[in-house]
């Protein structure tokens, strides 16, 4: 079969086409024919099939995600909302910040290093595309059991990939998560978050406006990367002359991306582009159709002009290729020379591949023959929408009946052994084995990074303005109650920012779930979105963007529902941030927030193989009062330190605080088992000087947050009631776990 053209499609309407192999349903194929009034050409079929895939079209999630828009609070702080590559938030002083989290789960299971590396590369390009300079990355990760052989294959590779790519780009890694659970064994989660900063006037959008403007492809050459999976079939079906199997794995070139970033920022600074789009999933199919539909719809592209790394690629493959490190810009003819000159300076390949027209169709030719002629919106935005059946799974009511009663320590010996166990359990142990492989210093603006509650970067050296970001997901709670789980993760992320004194401003999310074709999973998903949307509305925080990753399951077993929530906040003067720990003896330690019996879904229950029970209910009004208290206390320099309580409860928070600067503490608490191990949300440990205790009491009273004194700092041990654990012992337990597991 030679080149399939629009003319041939009209002449031979009945040529059979491999739509099913490309993942399209018969009715989806039928609606393509209806849109076009003829059968699609093979290139059009390629475009529709990738753009209408779950990954690109959000066809199963769309009906739910629209709540983020519908329920959203109206806020002037949101400069660009959901729908663009990433949302943009006003952080004051003329600065805007953009941030987004995305998944690269499946590729990272197949090839951990490259999968994770290209995950970082992809999210960074999303941020760059908005016109922003990327300034930091984070990496929420999930793995199978820490001691499983496959985790030993997957984890070091993923960590090396995140570091290998991010370090080479010069982006400080300012935080992330590492959680182990057996449901992730065949489905590790690699979520990557990037933050970027720009001036308001620098915001760029993906739109191809202005007839006569040029379409420029720049960056790496196009190869056969990522035309894998379903598309391997496609390339066989399309009879390319190339290698029988196109690589399903994409290999990243972080050096090319670093140069692409600097080159693009120079181009933006001279205001040389009208619109811009990165090439991510679905490659050119996505970039051209999205740019065109961002404008009037008219665009002409000469596909044979695309610079190829592999000359054997067919037009269909060029359209579908997911080769990394490419961007597509719309440039006015008067500015093209300067554009190409800057590309040359950076040694970046750039090619004019087409132009914007005043028509309404995206027309793509190959060697002069018309192979695509479509209304671009139908490719980019009008994909199928499914209202998938959903049903509360049976396990929900079953696990709710389970009694969660792990053994609780009472004697001094039990308290000590519990603390050492908590310090060393993989989910709570020191993560430096991982984070030491990431550059946290580059750019010289990192104020907080691991092991702080949130990452914080300075964005203006003169005014000291900064932003803080935290990501959180509590999959155990989401499993028990996805609605509450989402709200609780939101609250936790917001709290993690507020402990440092930053004011939460905006939310991003990456929703990792099993198969949407499973009504139970779909219910988990719907409940999660409803919870997050309700939570954001209540807290007055807009969702600025996010990502959905479905089909994370091994056979019929889905991963725990894992909504990773990222919250971004602003702090006017980073020099005044509240640190997570103390350097001095003689400070008083208080707990903000009351402790109930919340062992369901706790790490202590997980350690004892207990998964059921009833998740806590999120009290967002209380969370907001706590956040206000923390921000107000920071403003008045009340706190010497503040640290959030979450997974692992008070036990691990105390451990982290005393080990940070090697200053111990003496703690006196009632019911030590529950006090140490319960994971009641909405709690923070703060350290204040004795002179500030009154002020703290007043502030807590004013915000109606329970306050209890739990101890004081000092010494070279952590003393809890009559149990004494030396810091050395505690440190060994906390730090040896990862070294033992991963070498």
């Amino acid at each position: 079969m030679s080149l399939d053209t629009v003319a041939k499609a009209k002449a031979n309407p009945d040529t059979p086409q491999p739509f099913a192999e490309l993942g399209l349903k018969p009715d989806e194929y039928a609606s393509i024919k209806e849109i076009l009034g003829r059968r699609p050409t093979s290139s059009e079929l390629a475009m529709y099939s990738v753009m209408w895939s779950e990954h690109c079209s959000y066809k199963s999630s769309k009906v739910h995600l629209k709540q983020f828009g519908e329920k959203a609070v109206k806020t002037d702080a949101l400069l660009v909302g959901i729908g663009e590559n990433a949302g943009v938030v006003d952080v004051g002083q003329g600065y805007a910040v953009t941030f987004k989290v995305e998944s690269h789960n499946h590729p990272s299971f197949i090839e951990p290093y490259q999968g994770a590396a290209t995950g970082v590369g992809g999210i960074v390009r999303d941020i760059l595309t908005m016109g922003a300079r990327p300034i930091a990355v984070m990496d929420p990760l999930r793995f199978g059991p820490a001691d499983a052989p496959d985790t030993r294959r997957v984890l070091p590779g993923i960590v090396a990939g995140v570091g290998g790519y991010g370090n080479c780009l010069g982006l400080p890694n300012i935080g992330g998560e590492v959680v182990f659970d057996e449901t992730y064994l065949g489905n590790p989660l690699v979520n990557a978050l990037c933050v970027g900063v720009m001036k308001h006037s620098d915001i760029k959008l993906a739109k191809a406006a202005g007839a006569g403007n040029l379409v420029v492809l720049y960056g790496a050459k196009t190869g056969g990367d990522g035309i894998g999976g379903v598309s391997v079939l496609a390339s066989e079906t399309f009879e390319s002359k190339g290698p029988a199997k196109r690589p399903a794995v994409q290999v990243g070139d972080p050096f090319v991306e670093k140069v692409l970033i600097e080159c693009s920022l120079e181009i933006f600074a001279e205001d040389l582009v009208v619109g811009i789009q990165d090439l991510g999933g679905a490659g050119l199919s996505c970039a051209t159709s999205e740019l065109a539909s961002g404008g009037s719809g008219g665009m002409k592209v000469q596909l044979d002009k695309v610079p190829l790394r592999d000359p054997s690629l067919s037009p269909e493959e060029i359209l579908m290729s997911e080769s990394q490190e490419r961007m597509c810009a719309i440039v006015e003819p008067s500015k093209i020379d300067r554009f190409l000159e800057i590309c040359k300076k950076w040694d970046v390949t750039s090619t004019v591949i087409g132009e914007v027209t005043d028509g309404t169709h995206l027309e793509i030719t190959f060697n002069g023959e018309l192979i695509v002629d479509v209304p671009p919106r139908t490719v980019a935005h009008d994909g199928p929408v499914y209202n998938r059946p959903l049903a509360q799974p049976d396990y929900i009511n079953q696990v709710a009946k389970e009694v969660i009663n792990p053994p609780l320590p009472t004697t001094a010996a039990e308290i000590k052994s519990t603390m050492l166990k908590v310090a060393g359990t993989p989910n709570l142990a020191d993560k430096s084995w991982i984070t030491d492989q990431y550059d946290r210093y580059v750019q010289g603006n990192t104020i907080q990074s691991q092991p702080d509650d949130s990452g914080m970067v300075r964005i203006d050296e003169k005014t000291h303005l900064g932003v803080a970001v935290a990501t959180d997901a509590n999959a155990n709670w989401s499993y028990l109650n996805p609605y509450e789980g989402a709200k609780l993760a939101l609250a936790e992320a917001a709290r993690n920012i507020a402990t440092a004194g930053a004011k939460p401003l905006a939310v991003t999310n990456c929703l990792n779930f099993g198969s949407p074709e499973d009504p139970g999973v779909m219910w988990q998903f719907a409940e999660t979105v409803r919870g997050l949307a309700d939570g954001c509305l209540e807290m007055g925080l807009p969702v600025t963007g996010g990502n959905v990753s479905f089909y994370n399951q091994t056979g019929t077993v889905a991963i725990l529902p894992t909504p990773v929530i990222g919250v971004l906040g602003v702090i006017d003067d980073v020099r005044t941030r509240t640190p997570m720990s103390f350097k001095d003896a003689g400070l008083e330690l208080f707990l903000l927030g009351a402790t109930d019996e919340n062992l369901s879904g706790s790490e202590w229950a997980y350690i004892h193989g207990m998964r059921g029970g009833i998740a806590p209910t999120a009290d967002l009004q209380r969370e907001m009062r706590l956040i206000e208290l923390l921000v107000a206390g920071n403003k008045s320099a009340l706190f010497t330190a503040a640290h959030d309580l979450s997974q692992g409860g008070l036990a691990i928070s105390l451990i982290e605080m005393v080990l940070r600067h090697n200053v111990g503490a003496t703690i006196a608490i009632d019911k030590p088992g529950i006090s140490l191990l319960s994971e009641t949300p909405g709690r923070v440990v703060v350290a204040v000087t004795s002179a500030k205790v009154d002020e703290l009491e007043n502030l807590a009273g004013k915000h109606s947050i329970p306050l209890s004194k739990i101890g004081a700092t000092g010494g070279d041990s952590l003393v809890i009631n009559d149990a004494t654990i030396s810091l050395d012992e505690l440190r060994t337990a906390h730090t040896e776990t990862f070294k033992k597991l991963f070498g």
Partner: protein
Amino acid sequence: MKIGVVTFPGTLDDRDAARAVRYAGGEAVALWHDDAELKGVDAVILPGGFSYGDYLRCGAISRFSPVMEPLIAAAMGGMPLLGICNGFQVLAEAHLIPGALTRNQHLHFLCTDQKIRIENNNTAWTNSYTKDQEIVIPLKNGEGSYQCDDETLKMLEGEGRIIARYVGENPNGSRNLIAGISNERGNIVGLMPHPEHAIDALTGPGVDGLGFFTSVLKAMVK
């Protein structure tokens, strides 16, 4: 005092190095790898990063950049030249200082707050420190293990050209715990850890790194 900071494609810590120069009271001048031009600077810093992606060998490709020609000539003539991390690797590849930097023994990238001891405070870049002063500055690299033959090592030791040594456990397998060395004259220094990330306690482990930059300003006054 003008101090040039070279940017190669893939350089990352150029802005940090320029900031450090400013903090020390100097004027930072940006130099571009492709211009064989030193713009009248009094000293030059080759900053850290992954120039040319660290492909082939770290520093191997950058070492042939046009800016290197006038730079090598100037440095041979006594102009102070500091190579930090990737810059150290460029100096070694250009054979301005002996030895080579190889893969960390543990094969991982390592970012950590590292204690080092300043063993020679008679160079253009270390005269602000006292001899044997111990300081903490970030170390961050994947190929920071200093290697050379026995003869070179003996020479470096004998001539006091090991300007800084790691204190405590060897972080990367460097011979004799070498963190930094100088040329014979003491104007060219290669240093693996990053003083430019330790000039402000807000953003680094402390301010111990500032001395490298104040040193060169003093050296030039002399």
